[in-house]
């Protein structure tokens, strides 16, 4: 599977992997990862294009517009778990650089 695992992509994978069967909103992922919409959505789009991410529209409550939600497909979950070592290495690099607390 050809997907560039940038530090930002790894952050998104981490965020989704924290509760892999739960649907998440774009803004919630943005808050947990600290990524801006201009960075986050292209990553979500790429993951969805490669069928690693499934998307759906929330069933709307009356008077509230529906929101778009995301979670891993079974293949996406496997992919995220396989790439856990890369995330761990990235995390230890961030700790070493002082960008993240150990």
């Amino acid at each position: 599977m050809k997907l560039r695992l940038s530090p930002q992509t790894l952050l998104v994978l981490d965020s989704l992997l924290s509760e892999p069967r739960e649907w998440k909103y774009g803004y919630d992922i943005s808050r947990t990862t600290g990524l801006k919409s201009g960075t986050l959505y292209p990553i979500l789009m790429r993951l969805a294009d490669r069928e690693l991410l499934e998307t759906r529209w929330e069933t709307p409550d009356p008077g509230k517009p529906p929101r778009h939600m995301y979670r891993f497909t079974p293949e996406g979950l496997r992919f995220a778990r396989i790439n856990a070592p890369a995330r761990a290495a990235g995390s230890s690099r961030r700790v070493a650089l002082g960008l993240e607390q150990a």
Partner: protein
Amino acid sequence: MGVPRKLAAAMLKAALRLAPPITREWASAMLRELDFIPGDWAALLWALGSAAAIARHAGRGCVNLFKSSRSDQEKLMNPTGKRAIGFASGAISALALALIAFGLLFLTDFLFPQLGIARKEWTHLLGAIVIPEAIFIVAAVALWRRRKPVAMGILLTAAAIGLHVVIHVAAH
């Protein structure tokens, strides 16, 4: 609702209207999230980032569509047809660039008459001849190995324009 949030919503609605169908669902998703962002300025930043993401996604989709349709057409063509198309596209691109350069000169003269560009011969030579010809040569050298017919089309147009200028100068 503050002005920045109104601006953010208007920007994303415009992006949604302009987006091609493949991007529309994502644009709509970004627009919906806007209602849940606390703070007007944060909403505006969200909209700016989202608009950039929509533009990139739409652009990539168009490029992929163009590439796939071109490769489908190329498969059906014989080598002579491919060369002719390459040559024509090189010549047309070069001619378009030369016309744009010439048009920009006239536009600059129209917008800023105090500069007196129309009366200065060197601005015409530089803007409409020297710079475009330099671009043609660089482009032809860069394309020579990968797309020789395109490079030849560019070079031939560059030569024709150069010849036209020589004749024009000699006649006047």
